[in-house]
């Protein structure tokens, strides 16, 4: 995983979208990727929460990077991440209670999402504030795009809808399996295969 260069914020941002996309290229954060992509709305809510947590934790870790003791750094990262995940969980419960019910334990489980601790370790603990924020935004936007692509395919095939709006013709027969875990694995596998084919062709 390349370290973001402080002199090139654009590259840092773009890396998260494609070259180092956390889901499609680094295969990180697989738990929410498979679990909450049955429909676009929960996938988008999860992505917004991850964006909030990743940005805030990168800010805090970057600010205290010179004070971190090597043997305590993982503990500090976890403490920081857990705090912001709890705030995100409370906010979703307060302002989107139905989505909180739909997502169930997956918002608290952002604590163990390795994208966040990975970026704290690989980027925020070694770079300045601006680079850390740029990296967090790029990575979380890449995560959002990946989850939305997966969720769109699954929702379309499982229910014939996108954002709960019917888009398929009346004769469309829903594929129930697509809303179940098997649908998540198949869709992710096919998209990863497609991306690998594209990148091989380019190389």
């Amino acid at each position, binding site marked *: 995983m390349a370290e973001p260069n402080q002199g090139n914020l654009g590259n840092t941002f773009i890396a998260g979208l494609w070259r180092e996309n956390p889901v499609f290229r680094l295969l990180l954060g697989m738990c929410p990727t498979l679990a909450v992509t049955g429909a676009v709305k929960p996938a988008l809510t999860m992505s917004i929460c991850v964006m909030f947590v990743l940005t805030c934790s990168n800010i805090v870790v970057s600010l205290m990077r010179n004070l971190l003791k090597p043997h*305590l750094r993982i503990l*500090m990262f976890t403490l920081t991440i857990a*705090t912001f995940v*709890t705030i995100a969980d409370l906010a979703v*419960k*307060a302002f989107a209670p139905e989505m909180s019910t739909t997502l169930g334990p997956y918002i608290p489980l952002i604590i163990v999402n390795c994208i966040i601790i990975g970026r704290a370790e690989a980027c925020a603990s070694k770079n300045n504030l601006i680079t850390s924020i740029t990296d967090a935004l790029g990575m979380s936007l890449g995560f959002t795009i990946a989850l939305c692509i997966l969720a769109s395919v699954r929702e379309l095939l499982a229910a014939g809808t996108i954002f709960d709006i019917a888009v398929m013709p009346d004769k469309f027969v829903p594929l129930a399996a697509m809303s*179940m875990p098997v649908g998540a694995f198949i869709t992710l596998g096919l998209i990863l295969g497609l991306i690998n084919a594209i990148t091989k062709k380019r190389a």
Partner: protein
Amino acid sequence: MRSVKHFIEQSWLLIAAAFCFGLLLAMTNAALKDKIEQNQIDALNNMMRGLMSEATNFEKVIDQAEIAGYKTDIYKASDNGGQIIGFAFVGTGAGFADKIKLIIAVDGTCDKFLGFDVLSSNETPLFGDRIKEDWFRAQFVGAPAGALELIKSGDTKKIDNKIVAITGATVSSQATVKIFNDHIEELKSILKEKGLID
């Protein structure tokens, strides 16, 4: 003395961060707590209103009653004239994947069920979570408030103590019926004890 100094040198950042983050969480919780509680009350009231459409007032009559090993509040629903429409409580039991929590309503005399709604469940989509479907729930509306029996096939429109199971979701259907059976007698004795029914 040296060890205390060493301990503080090593861990001051962790202690300071834990204090700051704790404070931040306390402030967030204080700011959002009322809204979260109100959301939970609204969700409960909406479900109770759906089960007892004639009722206009919902009042908690028993706080944290223990039924079938789970604690639940019991609510009394009444209309504008003060007539009791029914009682509602949260019934909990083991489902296929996780605990199922149902809002169950009974009439004012505890003779009939008025139905149920699913407060929370993690049953398999398109199988176990079909306990939320109207045709399955409708079988409980008007059913005698006593022991219910799950059957594999039958007339789903006939209202009696027999509940037709969902094909492919036998465990979730059994769990739902078991929640009713586990709770109803204890509910009746609690309501009788409190003088809310004869």
